[in-house]
């Protein structure tokens, strides 16, 4: 497509690399420095241009610094701007020389032309030289009071630049307070927006260090500020509107009327041609209505059309970003999009990353009413010349088959794929047929008939080969020549390099042997021998062969019981992503998290995360901590979104359609055994769960402690306490454990604890807020906090509950040690009431 990458920086006519050019430039600049001759400015312009163009291609022209500064005494604004650009680029590496520029920049800051004042102030603040900050304060102070909005606009961001060079200097000069009053009073919308940008960034960075900053953040997201900004929204540029909408999405409305007021007010923003404005508005709508099931669903219906229009309107890149968000919504509530399936058909010209998203959406929304059309369409893509997409389409058909109850027709289609005789199609299909058989063993007859016709020589991909071998072993009684195919595969053991295939060969030979001993005995012997000799690559193969060998030697019946026990069909294949992760991505709507399908802590460094996002420290402590945004607004998130969507499905009496991404336990058969259980278990092992298992083990080791009689509470808690995760984390790190306790949960409590949300809601009723929670039955983990009424004393609690043993393990950290006992009593009494009527 594009020409090959150029050789790294070879000298070419257009890209001088040499020092001689720079020396030459310096010389010419020096000659012109003092010149007042007519035309001098034009020559300077040419020279400056060359300097800037070298700078752009990455040639170091910093050695010309003093010459550039000498030439900067000019009234020509084009020259001035180029000089500012140059100085801004190199000042940091030449702090001594940068001092030379202070003089003329300061002078320009007092120029009578507001544009010169603004430009000079911007450059002055962009020098990023720590020992020059003292020269910044006065011009910044003046800039914030300047009569020209342009200068104030520059100054408002200048404060933020100062903060990044010297936070102390910025805070000591009390600039944030000035910004705050400017934000609420300035007539110019961009000045207001820049104040807001600066304040948000400064306080977010300060929040982990000071209480004051947390309060300031709260103030930014408080009703007066939010409504002030909302009322001005049409004065703002579209970019600033996005900023304001982001602030609104963090606001917690007092009551439902406020929610409806805000939504009605912002309704027309959904018709904006700028996709960023629309998505920011949608985020507000989604977050505001989290606790109102019906309205939340209406929001989904309302935003569909604008989103689809945006997908069609912009450049491919813009539509991709929108489509990622649509993808997220579709995955959360597939049934709401089931009639829109045609919009997710792939178009010929679309890039493969778009097609992939669409295929996933099609898979998710397939239900009884549209499966036929969707699968027909997918089968067309399977013939596509774009092989990755063809593969993806076949997988999609398979997934649909796995989530449907009526798979009759789909199985036929899958079997037709095998008849296409394209290697990659056959390979993908075999893997799918295997999964299908694990879920629907009743189809074995039809499938085996077709699979039996496939020559193993045409199957090369290890995954597909492993699948074929699995089927040969599993259904060896129905496939006449199964032992012979296995035998020939075993004969070619050495050509089979993938350990995956070898492992399956061993197991298949065993299974076949139990069913048809005389025909398989020889092959099994050969397989075991070959496996035992296999010490070159993976010890797995060797170990399994040895294990089988000893097992068979010990007792064939036992061996059969171990290797080939009767199986339950797999009811639900595990979801790749936990619902906690999905919820966090949803909380981070309209950010990169949605595009990457990962919560932000997985791809951003700590310092670039706001305090309102969880860092991995806390996230790894807790099992999939909830995002901070829903923590600050715990009240709002009373309803877990999953509940919302489940209730939707009930409403539509659509319960039969499998619901992608729901809690697996809701669908799995009562006793999913052997493979099913293994797979379910393995998949839920979300990284941090290992830490959990240890907790659990320790928990079991502790002897039964009788539940202490709940002491009468002598402590009053603040009913509206608030704490942001950053502060929580800091406090948690600072404080030692005041109390550590073990108690038993009431049986009713155990029954009631089906989701973390039920307990969170209960504890809220006792003025104890949850900041993070996670886990799945039987293990749950919570972080709670509470605040003493009328004081700033906080109590922090880590609470681990195992519902199968009814054990609760508490760790309490208190800022006031003397109040820890009464708080613990209060907490326990609240906890023990859980589940009681």
């Amino acid at each position, binding site marked *: 497509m594009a020409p090959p*990458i*150029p050789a790294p920086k070879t000298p070419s006519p257009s890209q001088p690399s040499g020092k001689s050019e720079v020396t030459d430039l310096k010389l010419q600049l020096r000659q012109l420095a003092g010149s007042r001759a007519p035309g001098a400015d034009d020559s300077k312009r040419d020279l400056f241009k060359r300097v800037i163009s070298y700078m*752009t291609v990455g040639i170091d022209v910093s050695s010309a610094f003093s010459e550039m500064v000498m030439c900067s005494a000019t009234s020509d604004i084009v020259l001035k701007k180029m000089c500012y650009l140059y100085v801004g680029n190199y000042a940091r590496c030449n702090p001594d020389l940068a001092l030379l520029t202070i003089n003329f920049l300061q002078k320009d800051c007092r120029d009578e032309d507001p*544009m010169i004042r603004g430009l000079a102030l911007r450059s002055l603040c962009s020098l990023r030289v720590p020992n020059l900050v003292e020269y910044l304060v006065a011009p910044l102070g003046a800039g914030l009071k300047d009569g020209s909005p342009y200068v104030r606009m520059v100054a408002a961001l200048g404060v933020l630049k100062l903060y990044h060079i010297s936070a102390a200097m910025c805070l000591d000069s009390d600039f944030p307070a000035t910004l705050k009053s400017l934000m609420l009073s300035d007539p110019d919308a961009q000045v207001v927006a820049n104040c807001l940008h600066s304040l948000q960034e400064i306080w977010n960075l300060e929040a982990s260090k000071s209480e004051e900053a947390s309060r300031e953040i709260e103030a930014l997201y408080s009703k007066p500020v939010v409504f002030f900004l909302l009322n001005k929204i049409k004065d703002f540029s579209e970019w600033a509107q996005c900023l304001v909408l982001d602030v609104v999405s963090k606001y917690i409305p007092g009551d439902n009327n406020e929610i409806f007021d805000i939504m009605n007010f912002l309704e027309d923003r959904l018709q904006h041609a700028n996709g*960023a404005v629309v998505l920011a508005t949608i985020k507000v709508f989604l977050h505001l209505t989290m606790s109102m099931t019906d309205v939340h669903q209406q929001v989904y219906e309302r935003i569909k*059309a604008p989103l689809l*229009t945006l997908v069609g309107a912009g450049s491919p890149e813009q539509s991709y970003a929108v489509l990622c968000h649509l993808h997220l919504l579709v995955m959360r509530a597939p049934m709401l999009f089931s009639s829109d399936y*045609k919009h997710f058909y792939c178009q010929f010209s679309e890039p493969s990353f778009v097609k992939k998203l669409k295929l996933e959406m099609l898979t998710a929304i397939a239900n009884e009413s549209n499966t036929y059309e969707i699968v027909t369409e997918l089968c067309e893509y399977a013939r596509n010349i774009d092989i990755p997409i063809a593969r993806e389409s076949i997988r999609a058909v398979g997934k649909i088959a796995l989530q449907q109850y009526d798979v009759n027709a789909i199985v036929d289609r899958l079997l037709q794929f095998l008849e296409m*005789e394209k290697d990659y199609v056959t390979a993908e299909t075999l893997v799918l047929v295997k999964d299908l058989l694990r879920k629907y063993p009743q189809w074995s007859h039809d499938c085996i008939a077709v699979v039996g016709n496939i020559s193993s020589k045409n199957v090369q991909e290890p995954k597909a080969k492993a699948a074929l071998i699995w089927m040969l072993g599993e259904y060896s009684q129905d496939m006449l020549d199964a032992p012979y195919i296995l035998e020939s595969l075993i004969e070619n053991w050495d050509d089979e390099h993938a350990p995956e295939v070898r492992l399956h060969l061993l197991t298949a030979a065993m299974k076949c042997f139990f069913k048809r001993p005389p025909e398989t005995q020889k092959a099994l012997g050969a397989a075991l021998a070959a496996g035992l000799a296999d010490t070159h690559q993976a010890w797995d193969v060797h170990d399994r062969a040895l294990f089988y060998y000893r097992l068979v030697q010990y007792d064939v019946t036992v061996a059969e019981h171990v290797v080939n026990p009767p199986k339950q069909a797999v009811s639900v294949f595990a979801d790749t992503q936990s619902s906690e992760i999905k919820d966090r991505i949803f909380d981070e709507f309209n950010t*990169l998290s949605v595009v990457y399908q990962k919560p932000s802590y997985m791809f951003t460094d700590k310092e670039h995360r706001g305090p309102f996002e969880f860092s991995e420290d806390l996230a790894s402590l807790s099992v999939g901590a909830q995002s901070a945004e829903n923590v600050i607004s715990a009240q709002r998130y009373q309803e877990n979104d999953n509940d919302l969507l489940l209730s939707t499905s009930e409403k539509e009496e659509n319960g039969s359609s499998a619901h992608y991404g729901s809690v697996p336990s809701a669908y799995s058969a009562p006793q999913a055994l052997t493979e099913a259980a293994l797979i379910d278990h393995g998949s839920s092992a979300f990284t941090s769960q290992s830490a959990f298992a240890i907790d659990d083990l320790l928990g079991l080791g502790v002897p039964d402690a009788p539940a202490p009689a709940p002491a009468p509470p002598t402590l009053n808690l603040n009913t509206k306490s608030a704490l942001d995760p950053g502060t929580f984390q800091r406090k948690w790190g600072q404080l030692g454990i005041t109390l550590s306790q073990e108690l038993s949960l009431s049986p009713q409590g155990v029954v009631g604890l089906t989701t973390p949300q039920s307990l969170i809601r209960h504890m809220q009723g006792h003025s104890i807020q949850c900041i993070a929670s996670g886990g799945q039955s039987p293990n749950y983990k919570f972080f709670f906090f509470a605040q003493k009424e009328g004081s700033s004393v906080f109590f922090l609690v880590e609470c681990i509950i195992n519902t199968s043993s009814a054990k609760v393990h508490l760790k309490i950290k208190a800022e006031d040690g003397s109040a820890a006992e009464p708080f613990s009593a209060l907490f326990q009494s609240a906890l023990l009431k859980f589940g009681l009527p």
Partner: protein
Amino acid sequence: MISQFFVLSQRGDNIVFRDYRGEVPKGSAEIFFRKVKFWKEDEAEEAPPVFNVDGVNYIHVKVAGLLFVATTRVNVSPSLVLELLQRIARVIKDYLGVLNEESLRKNFVLVYELLDEVIDFGYPQTTSTEVLKSYIFNEPIMVDAARLPPLGPAAMFMQGAKRMPGTAVTKSVVANEPGGRKREEIFVDIIEKISVTFSSSGYILTSEIDGTIQMKSYLTGNPEIRLALNEDLSIGRNGSSIYDYHSSSGGGTVVLDDCNFHESVHLDSFDIDRTLTLIPPDGEFAVMNYRMTQEFKPPFRINALIEEAGPLKAEVLLKIRADFSPSVTANTITVQMPVPSYTARASFELEAGAVGQTTDFKEGSKRLEWCLKKIVGGAEHTLRAKLTFSQESHGNTTKEAGPVNMNFTIPMYNASRLQVRYLQIAKKSKTYNPYRWVRYVTQANSYVARL
């Protein structure tokens, strides 16, 4: 909030590079280019517009063969950055008249001037071409537009269409005409991208129109403009919308699924008489975007057939019929058809007297390609091809060929029948009579016929 902005040429050279926050280490442009060039993740061969390398997020758009890139370490809104990049490209085009590598290289100082005002410390400030005018002091150095390959959807007006002043889309908003006077004119383009999928029996499986009313104003003094659309235009399907007080079964009505508007548009009288009122800002912008899935008459019918003619041979027959008025002519038509992967050779047979048609067999991607310079409304064209296979087909050549896809541009045609009834400019004086150009064009987005 972005950290850096840069524009790379197709070869990966920095044409413009601006670091706003100094948080991303040097060499980011090279890291980015390498990654895009040799993308190999997730089985895909094309880099998505947004990706992360070592904690740095790279967000890019391709415009006119150039890569416009922003980097950031923060979890920003991808839409915001992508819209911003696209807008920066548009603003630069407004100033330079033409956006391409040459014009950018010649005017990089002006571009730096723009970038200084558009973004400060990574935060977008203003992208209004008009507001920016007062901050820009460099004069654009014009490049010769005539010998440049056409760019962007509006550029199609440059070729062939004699009715249009060709220079219109390549005029800078700040440059003056040679006479020192600015020509008062305004362009309104109705651009529709259509997607149609035909089943093997010729039945329409899906169809959609994505349309834009694009405006480019060179009017001085910001006069108010009224743009009247079809009176019976209705918005929202299935009667679910509050707008839907017309009976949509009336045949003639145009029903849009949904639309959105530029922020300068006032919709006060839109519900009553379907009129948009606006004071157009300088430069190019989309007044309205719309989407329509209502059935429409597709401009082309495609007939494709592949038949075996012996064990190692097959014959292909491709036929296209232009289903529109003879007064309209489609141009730059390409028809592509993938053939079985074991096809070794293809020979073509054009219809008698064919003019301006070329054929090719793309060996690497195994497709037949048929290009036609133009097709007049009502005309029908046929292509026959003989394929030679390198191995015996298994009697399912039809399954292994296709789908046929088609690309075209049809000036002065719009599939949706959405019309600008009139374009009214508030008069400043009696003699004030600016040029106004209302132009329609339809393009294929995804025009596919299955076998």
